[in-house]
């Protein structure tokens, strides 16, 4: 189970509202490579993961992603404070505003609602860990694109922190993959699913 800590993992302090930027950044809240999908992916993959230390990494990284979801929500919240209807139209936030006012809704920048179709739980440790490494790189690329579009140093500071976390998680998942591969039968390196074909004793 989980307990809540009443503090962000890294501080978010944005001085200037900017709804246009909020509409871009919300893609890391509920978009295809966002933090919600990351968390659900890792926490859901744990059940079919036969190796204890990989269960630990999936648990901790999946938990940290929830903290990142909260940071993205905080950025969107602070970027959309105190806007007038005129500013909302001028900054291109009107199409979001009409559906959600200034609430934080899990969607991609394009407006597509969050979908689990962007993530996979394959039930095969090797497949899942490759998915996880790809997911970390996709999120890192998204943060790179956000940094290309952001001209607000307060926003970019928090985004750079989140980008660096993707790099660290990629490294940890790579170590998990190596750990799993080290325990496979060399004659059946990719032909077996260690979660299904060689189940752990019940």
């Amino acid at each position: 189970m989980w307990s809540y800590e009443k503090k962000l993992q890294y501080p978010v302090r944005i001085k200037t509202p900017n709804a246009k930027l909020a509409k871009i950044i919300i893609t890391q809240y509920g978009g295809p490579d966002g933090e919600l999908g990351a968390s659900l992916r890792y926490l859901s993959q744990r059940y079919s993961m036969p190796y204890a230390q990989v269960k630990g990494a999936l648990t901790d990284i999946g938990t940290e992603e929830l903290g990142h979801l909260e940071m993205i929500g905080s950025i969107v919240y602070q970027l959309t404070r105190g806007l007038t209807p005129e500013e909302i139209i001028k900054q291109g936030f009107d199409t979001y505003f009409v559906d959600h006012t200034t609430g934080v809704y899990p969607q991609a920048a394009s407006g597509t609602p969050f979908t689990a179709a962007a993530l996979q739980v394959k039930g095969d440790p090797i497949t899942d860990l490759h998915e996880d490494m790809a997911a970390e790189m996709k999120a890192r690329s998204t943060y790179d694109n956000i940094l290309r579009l952001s001209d607000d140093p307060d926003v970019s500071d928090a985004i750079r922190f989140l980008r660096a976390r993707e790099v660290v998680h990629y490294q940890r998942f790579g170590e998990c993959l190596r750990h799993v591969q080290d325990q496979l039968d060399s004659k059946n390196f990719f032909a077996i699913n260690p979660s299904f074909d060689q189940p752990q004793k019940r």
Partner: protein
Amino acid sequence: MYSSNRGSEWTLPFMAWELRLYLDTHPNDEKALNAYRQICAKLEGCSGACRTPAGEMTDGDSRRWTWVDDPWPWQTEANLADVPGKNESEG
């Protein structure tokens, strides 16, 4: 790079958390485990990232990161202990 001078309110818990992720994939790294325990000791009440299951902090003699060990909560083996009072209420 992002600012690193934002004060210990964020720095120490982050250091602990980063060591924690490292320990998940390097559970036998004593040096990292000792560093983790030292940071935990600095954090008042050992809250947040240093919150570990019963035994980890008191079992300071353990030379490996036992937190990753089986069983995990979804496994039957982790659910065999009696729930206090359950039998009384049913009886």
